């Protein structure tokens, strides 16, 4: 039925099977759309956010997908600026994953602002002293860059590529892709950093507050660093899941191992910096504000001291050690474990820097205040996941995403 659209020399599942897949994931997507419409029509009273939690599940999801989507800018930087040529075999997928992550982040923000009709105010009436304005600018511009990077892939669809104008446009975009990749790296450096800067400048929230350089708190650099380290881990993880689902090898091991090695060293250096930052904050910064480390942790279900151990040691030090050793990268199980832990680690870091910052009592009359999202918040957070799965399914079926697929899976 759709064989004319499928790339030549590769095998895909039957249209019926693919439609069933789209139907199942589409149902989840519709559930999210319903919740999204409730939030837009009835307002933010559909959420469990309150005066304690102005930032909640959505902002965590935003920060997490932006960090995980960091694989696109960092792989692009390595491929086009540093010249790691082997990464041309995974850059398409990194771009697709980045495109999904950033479009999801923008969608979540469009729901979170409560009054989307006034969303353009952040550009038009920009507050130039706000980290979040900088994030909005860079996020939107970088989404434009990712669209430009994804567009040639769409134009390389078997039927579209036959149109001479589309063929030439795709070719020309590839020719100057290094310019777009460099712009993307510049934009990513600043918006990843500014997201970390948001909690770092909150001097009224001593759990998040950090000292730093000029206007940038240390969290600015830690966020960029962790995104560059863990974003490629997410790209590897999604590649492995896609290989499992399609029951095909899509990327050669040497490509995965190279990306894993670079991620490993980025993660190792990041986690050293993170430990130093935590130690300095716990022993100098926080005591200067009248707090000591265990004031920020409690015996409640969410924020015991275990969360620090889980984030830094189990999901930081451990995957870094696996990824920087050759035997760790060559073992399929260890590699998978490391990328899963790294993805959990960076997501947990964003959770802590958004939610725990809000939960810690700062006034003498305050106590720990817990938050659990409403079903509408959960559904609208699941929505981008379903959208991402559908876009990956469509892209894998109709676009030449994996350049090594034909060689690795010859059709008799």
């Amino acid at each position, binding site marked *: 039925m759709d064989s004319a659209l499928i790339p030549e020399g590769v095998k895909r599942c039957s249209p019926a099977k693919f439609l069933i897949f789209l139907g199942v994931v589409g149902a989840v997507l519709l559930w999210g759309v319903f919740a999204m419409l409730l939030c837009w029509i009835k307002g933010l009273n559909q959420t469990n956010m309150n005066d304690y939690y102005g930032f909640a599940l959505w902002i965590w999801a935003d920060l997490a997908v932006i960090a995980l989507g960091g694989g696109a800018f960092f792989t692009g930087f390595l491929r086009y600026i540093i010249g790691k040529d082997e990464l*041309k*075999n995974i*850059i*398409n997928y990194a771009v697709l994953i980045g495109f999904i992550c950033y479009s999801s982040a923008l969608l979540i923000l469009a729901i979170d602002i409560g009054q989307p009709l006034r969303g353009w105010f952040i*550009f*038009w*009436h*920009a507050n*130039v*002293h706000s980290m979040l*304005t*900088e994030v909005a*600018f*860079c996020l939107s*511009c970088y989404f*434009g*860059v990712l669209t*430009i990077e994804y567009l*040639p892939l769409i134009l*390389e669809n078997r039927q579209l*590529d036959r149109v*001479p*104008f589309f*063929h*030439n*446009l*795709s*070719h*020309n*975009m*590839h020719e*100057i892709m290094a*310019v*777009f990749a460099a*712009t993307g790296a*510049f*934009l990513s450096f*600043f918006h990843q950093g500014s997201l970390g800067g948001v909690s770092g400048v909150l001097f009224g929230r001593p759990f998040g507050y950090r000292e730093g350089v000029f206007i940038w708190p240390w969290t600015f650099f830690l966020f960029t660093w962790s995104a560059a380290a863990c974003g490629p881990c997410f790209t590897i993880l999604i590649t492995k899941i896609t290989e499992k689902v399609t029951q095909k090898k899509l990327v050669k091991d040497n490509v995965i191992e190279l990306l894993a090695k670079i991620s490993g060293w980025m993660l190792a250096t990041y986690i050293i910096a993170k430990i130093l930052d935590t130690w300095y904050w716990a022993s100098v910064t926080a005591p200067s504000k009248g707090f000591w480390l265990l004031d920020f942790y409690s015996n409640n279900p969410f924020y015991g001291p275990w969360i620090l151990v889980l984030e830094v040691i189990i999901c930081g030090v451990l995957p870094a050690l696996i990824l920087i050793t050759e035997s760790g990268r060559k073992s399929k199980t260890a590699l998978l474990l490391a990328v899963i832990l790294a993805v959990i680690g960076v997501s947990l870091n964003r959770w802590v820097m958004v939610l725990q910052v809000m939960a810690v009592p700062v006034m003498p009359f305050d106590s720990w205040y817990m938050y659990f999202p409403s079903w509408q918040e959960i559904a609208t957070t699941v929505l981008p996941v379903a959208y991402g799965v559908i876009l990956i399914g469509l892209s894998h079926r109709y676009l030449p995403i994996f*350049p090594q697929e034909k060689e690795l899976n010859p059709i008799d």
Partner: protein
Amino acid sequence: MFPFIFEWVWDMSHIVFMGGLWYALTIIGLGMTYCLIKAIADTAGIGSGGHHHHDDHH
């Protein structure tokens, strides 16, 4: 965002902040304009363009 909007002030914050935004937008805009114009020229057979192969595009 623009100097004609009422709250605009010609200070360092606005120049650095908006300078960065317009710098990025200019590169993206000029890059895409170049690609589109060259694609039109190639399709029309102007210059040395014409049909390309995708051997090393990834």
